[in-house]
């Protein structure tokens, strides 16, 4: 039987506010335990939550960039459960009327475009951290993270492969950073995904029983966890078994998922509107103000790169992978009108390759767009060959000669010979010295021609323009 995998994703994006969602405590990462937990975060008696405007603004921005409906009023609810890192005994979240409802995100997988529908995105507070190392048989609680604002972004079960799930997660990750609502630091847990996975016979429109895999904090784990889970479910079904609805954990060391809790012992969260918080009203005026602060969105830029710069779908998608890369590309190409493809190739090739190799972000790139454009200008006007340009690039990367392109070309003797006279002289010498190959070429051996080109290039120490050498050789041989 042919199986179809059905995936929905819930993402917790930590919002990049200075202070917590309901208190004035700092959200800075890595502070000493409990130094950023005040009376509200500790749930001391008599305290009241006061909603952070910055958190609401970020939620609205996400909604605007995915074409969602912004609910007004929007309601906060209590999600009740007992755990020591949640001192109130409930998490303030949203149930009915979340800030963001609907919307969609477009993904591309194997040249196919697909729209993933969003169900909702709601605001909530994070819990603290429990440390289960041995404190005389007790657990240690750090409440610095308690009350950190999160936006939980939930999709419809629209994805059909781990590749689509990863494409979605990457797209969302890029978007939240693009609009500046989340730093996207997955290692610090600022962006974590839960995947709901089920399988069904291909062609069926009934959803299978799903399992939720919690807390996947890298794209690779997301992919591997889904692949493992789908295989596990298919094996059970093919053996005539049934899937039990449950929450599972992914163990990266063993590359497998395992049961965390089954539906029978799942908590009943007894959601109800939080009487400590009034309905949140979001005016059209406020929404419009925020709309004005949004940067040009990745999808819009992507289309513009295709229509205005004539770039391929692929190039446009890679360049709009992050706002910083897109900006770098645009700043480079602004210096070199009508050479977008050359700029794109270098940003995606040399620059990205080198950044990856050294594991640094484009914001820390030692070569800025102006310098890169200066180099590309020299390729374009024939001063250096593409090959020599890579040597110049290396020198610039290492900060040689103040990254002055022309000075580097001079110092390293990389200038391409395009003087017809000089090349002609070398061509004549090579022809005279290789009578046999000339003969072979005239007898129809194409190989002999390539060998002659190679010898001329060698004679120029690779500094001749290959196209020019080609033409000249052809003219001489065919005349």
């Amino acid at each position, binding site marked *: 039987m042919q199986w179809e995998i059905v995936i929905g994703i819930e993402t917790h994006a930590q919002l990049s*506010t*200075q*202070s917590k969602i309901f*208190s*004035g*405590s*700092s959200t800075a990462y890595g502070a*000493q*335990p*409990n*130094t*950023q*937990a*005040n*009376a509200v975060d*500790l749930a001391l008696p008599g305290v009241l939550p*006061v*909603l*952070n*405007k*910055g*958190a*609401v603004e970020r939620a609205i921005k996400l909604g605007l960039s995915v074409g969602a409906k912004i609910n007004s*009023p929007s*309601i906060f609810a209590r999600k*009740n459960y*007992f*755990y*020591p890192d949640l001192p109130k005994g409930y998490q303030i979240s949203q149930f*009915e*009327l979340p800030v963001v409802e609907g919307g969609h995100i477009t993904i591309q997988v194997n040249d196919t475009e697909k729209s993933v529908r969003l169900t909702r995105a709601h605001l909530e507070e994070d819990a603290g951290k*429990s*440390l*289960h190392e041995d*404190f*005389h*048989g*007790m*657990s*240690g*609680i*750090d*409440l610095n993270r308690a009350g950190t604002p999160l936006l939980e972004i939930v999709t419809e079960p629209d994805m059909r492969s781990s590749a689509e799930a990863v494409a979605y997660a990457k797209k969302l990750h890029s978007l939240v950073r693009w609009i500046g609502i989340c730093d996207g630091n997955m290692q610090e847990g600022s962006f974590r995904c839960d995947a709901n996975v089920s399988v069904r016979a291909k062609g069926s429109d009934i959803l299978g029983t799903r399992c939720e895999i919690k807390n996947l904090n890298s794209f690779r784990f997301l992919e591997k966890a889904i692949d493992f889970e789908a295989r596990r479910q298919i094996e059970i079904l093919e053996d005539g078994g049934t899937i039990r609805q449950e929450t599972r954990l992914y163990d990266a060391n063993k590359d497998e998922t395992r049961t965390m*809790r089954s539906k029978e012992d799942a*908590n*009943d969260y*007894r959601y109800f*509107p939080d*009487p400590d*918080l*009034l*309905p*949140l*009203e979001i005016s059209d005026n406020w929404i419009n103000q925020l709309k004005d602060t949004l940067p040009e969105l990745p999808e819009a830029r992507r289309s513009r790169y295709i229509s205005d710069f004539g770039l391929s779908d692929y190039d446009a998608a890679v360049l709009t992978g992050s706002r910083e890369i897109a900006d770098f590309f645009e700043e480079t190409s602004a210096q070199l009108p009508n050479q977008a493809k050359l700029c794109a190739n270098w940003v995606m090739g040399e620059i990205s390759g080198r950044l990856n190799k050294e594991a640094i972000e484009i914001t820390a790139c030692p070569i800025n767009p102006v310098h890169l454009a200066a180099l590309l200008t020299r390729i374009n006007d024939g001063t250096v060959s593409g090959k020599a340009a890579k040597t110049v690039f290396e020198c610039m990367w290492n900060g040689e000669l103040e990254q002055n392109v022309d000075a580097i070309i001079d110092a390293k003797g990389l200038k391409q010979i395009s003087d017809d006279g000089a090349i002609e002289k070398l061509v004549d010498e090579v022809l005279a010295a290789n009578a046999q190959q000339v003969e072979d070429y005239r007898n129809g051996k194409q190989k002999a021609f390539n060998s002659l080109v190679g010898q001329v290039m060698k004679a120029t120490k690779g500094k001749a323009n290959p196209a020019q050498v080609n033409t000249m050789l052809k003219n001489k041989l065919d005349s």
Partner: protein
Amino acid sequence: MTLSANDVKAIADLAYIEVNEGEVQATLSQLTDIFDLIETMQAVDTSSVEPMSHAQDVAQRLREDEVTESDQRESNQSVAPQVEAGLYLVPKVIE
């Protein structure tokens, strides 16, 4: 809706409350009364009424996103039963 003794036990379990058999029966009859009351209220047609999420007809006030709190760990932990390395210690719980 009819409530069973098992429902009462499940609710008690969620609320981390210990109840004995006698209390289960007493609670069951009290809760059943409450459910009867709810049932009576549900007979009213509320389809045209917007659900009330708060008793006061005012909107939530917002605060600016600023850090206004300083480190109060020492005074907060002075009333905690047990602390170590800046952490609050609690009986071990692993779910």
